[in-house]
């Protein structure tokens, strides 16, 4: 069990990363999230990194992995709260967050997840007619 709490908000899971994670913790989080997405039938995963002062390639890969796994499980991943200094450094680092959507804060993140799910359901309904 990772020490990072995972909250449920409707059909979304919210993870708020507060601590400077060491690698074991990051791996544990990935595992926990995957299990919870299935257990809670979550449609969205929101990762709040507003407390992170550093995002290096390891954390970047973790975020990419979480997004990839959620997609397989039919959930949308949004990363919120990235700090300007972190964003600038990531651009310089050349790290691409593939398959990871981003929003400025939790509210916008939830709205984004909502709109993506709704659009997807509309598309499904349209197809099924």
């Amino acid at each position: 069990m990772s020490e990072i709490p995972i909250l449920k908000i409707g059909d979304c899971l919210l993870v708020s990363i507060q601590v400077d994670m060491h690698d074991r913790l990051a791996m544990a989080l990935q595992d926990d999230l995957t299990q919870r997405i299935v257990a809670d039938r979550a449609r969205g995963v929101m990762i709040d990194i507003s407390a992170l002062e550093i995002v290096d390639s390891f954390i970047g890969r973790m975020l990419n992995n979480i997004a990839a796994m959620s997609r397989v499980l039919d959930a949308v991943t949004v990363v919120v709260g990235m700090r300007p200094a972190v964003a600038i450094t990531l651009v310089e680092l050349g790290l691409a967050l593939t398959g990871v959507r981003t929003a400025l804060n939790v509210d916008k993140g939830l709205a984004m997840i909502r709109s993506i799910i709704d659009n997807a359901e509309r598309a499904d309904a349209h197809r099924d007619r």
Partner: protein
Amino acid sequence: MLIETGETMPLRTSDDVVRVRQAVRLRAVGAGFSLVDQTKIVTAASEIARNTVDYGGGGVLRIEVLRDGRRQGVRLTFTDQGPGIPDIALALKDGYTSGGGLGLGLSGAKRLSNEFAITSAPGHGTTVTLARWK
């Protein structure tokens, strides 16, 4: 140019990587780096520290605060006695999109630094030196 102060830290576990990030941050703050510059050097340190622990079999980091006239800088020297890097040029070329593998932190750390040097040979370990100036 002179070395104002320095410290040496062990790099054996992933907890050490966290400690390295904190120590480098402190030194960067002390040298008067802007927030963005702090973030860049701490991120670069995190990359190389990870490499040292994961691929170098553990090693040591020396942090030095430098002064050259009016400029202040922070220099980091990572040393390990691990297997070494067979093809440095290739390791420096890798981008992050190519997935896992050895030395992915190198090219990024180099981009985040003002000075960057690496010596490594199979069987002789690896030394990475990087520096950032205010």
